[in-house]
């Protein structure tokens, strides 16, 4: 193992972790406030599509990002309307968000571009390019490949971890948010609207999923391909449980998941492809690691994962 290879694995892990991390934080806000969010996948997908379509039509990745956030926010508010205002089943609402996003992205894409749901390939001006931090090539290969040289969204995502921690644990809003998930009656007794707090939480989740989707389609790749989120929303949910709904733990979990995938890619490339046993094993571990870890946590082997007490229960003011 030389330094270049190590740097490369960590760089790859960072890129792969970013969309999962953003979606995971989105789920954190929502679930801490008592709204289960299984629709992370769908929100990322519609955001990825909106980002690529807008960037392709306007030529600007910034407009693409704005469109991604708007689209994801709209879907988040739809989920909020169904599960907060109408007090519907949050799981069902989330599942339908996922299906709706896949369908509407394909349909709109076909209508706009006639490319069977894909968007045209984006040029480098239409995408977020990689940033070179100061002293890019002067501080060693680890700094050059792992710390520097990512798109702006990666740095935003890491900043969001700190922001989430501050917002959830250090502000009045955060206290109300957590209370809305643990003891909504107490929130309402204090004269604060549970519905409003939950709407805020769901909306923040929408914005974060929007950034995650844009990262997939206009930073990591150059355009939207049908279902390109490839279950990353569900891996984010697994990471959220593994991290026990805490922001810094979420960061480490997502980096760990990204790291396992990056290692998997390296091993597969080295091993002879005819060695079917080994490639199948590596591929299995790489794909199912997040889920296996989550099951281990849920089974109670590594501490206890307790979701918000009022999670998934629609709040009714007067009983």
């Amino acid at each position: 193992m030389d330094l270049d290879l190590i740097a490369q694995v960590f760089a790859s892990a960072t890129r792969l972790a970013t969309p999962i991390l953003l979606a995971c934080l989105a789920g954190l806000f929502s679930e801490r406030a008592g709204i289960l969010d299984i629709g992370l996948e769908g929100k990322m997908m519609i955001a990825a599509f909106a980002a690529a379509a807008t960037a392709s039509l306007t030529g600007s990745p910034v407009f693409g990002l704005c469109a991604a956030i708007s689209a994801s926010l709209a879907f988040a508010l739809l989920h909020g309307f169904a599960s907060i205002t109408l007090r519907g089943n949050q799981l069902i609402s989330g599942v339908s968000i996922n299906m709706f996003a896949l369908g509407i992205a394909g349909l709109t894409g076909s209508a706009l571009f006639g490319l069977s749901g894909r968007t045209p390939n984006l040029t480098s001006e239409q995408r977020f390019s990689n940033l070179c931090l100061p002293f890019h090539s002067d501080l060693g290969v680890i700094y050059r490949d792992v710390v520097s040289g990512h798109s702006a969204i990666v740095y935003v995502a890491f900043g969001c971890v700190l922001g989430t921690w501050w917002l959830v644990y250090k502000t009045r809003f955060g206290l109300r948010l957590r209370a809305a998930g643990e003891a909504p009656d107490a929130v309402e007794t204090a004269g604060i609207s549970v519905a409003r707090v939950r709407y805020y939480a769901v909306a923040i989740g929408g914005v974060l999923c929007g950034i995650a989707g844009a990262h997939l389609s206009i930073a990591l790749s150059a355009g939207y391909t049908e279902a390109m989120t490839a279950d990353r929303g569900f891996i984010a949910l697994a990471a959220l449980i593994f991290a026990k709904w805490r922001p810094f733990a979420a960061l480490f979990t997502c980096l760990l998941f990204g790291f396992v995938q990056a290692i998997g890619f390296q091993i597969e490339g080295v091993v002879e492809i005819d060695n079917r046993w080994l490639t199948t094993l590596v591929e299995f571990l790489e794909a199912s690691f997040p889920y296996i870890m989550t099951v281990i946590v849920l089974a109670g082997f590594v501490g206890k994962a307790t979701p918000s007490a009022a999670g998934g229960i629609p709040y009714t003011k007067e009983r």
Partner: protein
Amino acid sequence: MNCSSTLISLLLCTSVGGAALAESKPAVIYGLGGKFDRSFNESTYNGAQRFTSETGTAYREFELQSDAQREQVLRRFAQEGRSPIVVAGFAFAQPVNTVAQEYPDTSFVIIDSVVELPNVRSLVFKEHEGSFLVGLLAALASETGSIGFVGGMDIPLIRAFACGYRQGALEVDEDISILENMTGTTGAAWSDPVKGGELARAQIGRGADVIFQAAGGTGVGVLQAAADGGILGIGTDSNQNGLHPGQVLTSMLKRVDVAVYSALMAADQDAFEPGVSSLGLAEGGIDWADDENNSSLISDEMRAAVTEAKEAIISGEIVVHDYRTDDSCPS
């Protein structure tokens, strides 16, 4: 059941219509991934379009939205009296096998898989021959002595690509290092450009400076990462040289369009023949792309070498091993 068939007939009404002039009333069903996937399905579409523009015979078409629709649509077209019915993709093998037995008077054409029935024509390709040629080009173009391959779903067909590519590269340089990655083992492996890009970056990091993709939508991410990383990509199925002009070395062409066109023409002239056609370099079913987008990348020596290899394969002088015959690749 009623609802879904109504839905399908609604969808059918919106597809290409028009009065059929000749006897044949063809229909085309595209696989998942859509009609304009810049790849396999688009090639099928181009073949059918060429047939229509030359004969004036219209055809009906259907774009699958899910696996469950395969049998439904086949049966629906057969009930309508459509014949021949062309289907694109290996995943149609089982549905065609079922429906073709129910409608023995209807002709079926299946691409990329073999169904042995008296009313089915199976069109398969010798992808290993084309992969050999692009492997040869990759090895000639490589300066680092290391080249890569990124496959889609891990199935024998894609392993045949990898195996042909390996043989072509080894023909040029016995010490060349070849990195091989498969994207996954499920259908999702065809539509994850992010993972494709990450796999390509991993290979670039290990020194690869030419990467061949055979991964559908995932491959778009591979070619993108190759272009971003300043190395060369190689496309598959359709001519993908134009995706990143000057950064795609070549594309392995699978002339699905030619095959579909000739099958439709044959049926139109009442000369439909069941059985298996295996199309390779000799039949013009497989080729490599040489156009203005990659002309600066292909030197005269490379062109000469690949032409020579092509002739040697056609004459039988070089035999490219097909992974699918014995599930292994000679090293």
